[in-house]
């Protein structure tokens, strides 16, 4: 189940200079961008601000977008990354915020991006595959126990782990991951 938003568009250079193009780009990519913004900023309000700033900057620089260099999605993520850094800086100099009792995001941005990518990929693989990876890997439960609970042979659990990792790889590649 791969959202069509991940398919690379056949857009042309300067594809974001018109307001209509921005609307289309928003429909296709805002969910993912927002997800990453929430993950890295740890705050829904700031995440909204970051996504808004990303699309405004993309529109201002719309003429410079060249699909020959990379997908629109990659370009938008690159802008969002800068916006998140800028917002993080602004927050760092704003006095008092860090004392608000909320654990501020101390996670470096690259780590946040990696975590978000893996979490997003886990969401996109099939339920059966995700379940066995969660039970055996994240919860560390024995294969026999999981097999019994799910009512399938142990070998099936093992093969699901295998096909689950393969599916993850495919999804991560679609999200731009390279070895």
């Amino acid at each position, binding site marked *: 189940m791969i959202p069509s938003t991940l398919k690379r568009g056949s857009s042309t250079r300067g594809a974001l200079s018109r307001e209509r193009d921005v609307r289309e780009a928003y*429909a296709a990519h805002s969910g993912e961008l*927002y997800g990453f913004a929430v993950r890295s900023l740890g705050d829904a309000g700031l995440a909204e601000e970051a*996504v808004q700033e990303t699309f405004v900057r993309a529109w201002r620089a719309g003429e410079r977008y060249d699909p020959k260099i990379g997908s629109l999605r990659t370009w938008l993520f690159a802008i969002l990354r800068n916006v998140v850094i800028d917002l993080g800086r602004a927050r760092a100099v704003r006095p008092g915020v860090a004392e608000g009792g909320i654990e501020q995001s101390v996670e470096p941005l690259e780590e946040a991006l990696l975590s978000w990518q893996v979490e997003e990929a886990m969401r996109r693989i099939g339920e059966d595959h995700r379940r066995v990876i969660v039970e055996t890997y994240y919860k560390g439960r024995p294969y026999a126990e999981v097999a019994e609970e799910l009512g399938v042979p142990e070998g099936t659990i093992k093969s699901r782990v*295998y096909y689950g990792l393969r599916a993850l790889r495919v999804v991560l590649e679609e999200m731009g991951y390279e070895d």
Partner: protein
Amino acid sequence: MKTRNNCRDWRELLGAYALGQLEGDERTGLEAHLDGCAQCREELALLQPVAAMLPHADPERFEAAAPQPPPELGARIGATIAAERQQVEKRRRRVFGGFALGGATAALAAAVLAIFVLGGGSSGEPERHVAFASRGVSIDATLEPHAYGTEIRMYVHGVASGTLCRVSLRGPGGTSYPAGTFRYRWGEDSEAVLSSALDLSRTRAVVVHAGKRTFVAPLGSAPATAHIPTQEEST
């Protein structure tokens, strides 16, 4: 332990192996198979980096629904962009309207803007110079290519003050493309700037009707500043 006869049976263990979950005979058996099977080694090499990424994810996060942007965010972004675009347009109008003395100047400003926007001299075609003289009248014109057509800058000497001059460019097959009019009311040393929709590359001649006389200055094949002989026609 189940007997594993083919590659596929072994391969289905690679996931558990990459996650470090395989033990005992199964592990030993798979490692022995890997020693002799390049295909399975390749497959393992694809899974290992994925397995190494798993510790970065938090299952509590991915098992919860993905956060969604509020429904009004799209409209808010659209409104922000529309407002910014209007600001830019207003600023642009102010800059070009600032020195406007009247409708004609405003139109010229618009034309100049159009030249900036559309021209840019990107065609790579050089400008052409035409000079001709006949019966006491001399005309100098520089023709410059633009995306919209051709810009003509022209000096006319020897016509009586107040004479209406109509200029056009002649295209292939004799079709005429108007470039505008001008009339010297005092002096005759100012340059008239005109424009025509005909591309410079297709321009064969510059035609000037000065009062009742018509001058036709053909463009040579080579861009040059050489004097081009004039044909004078009477109307």
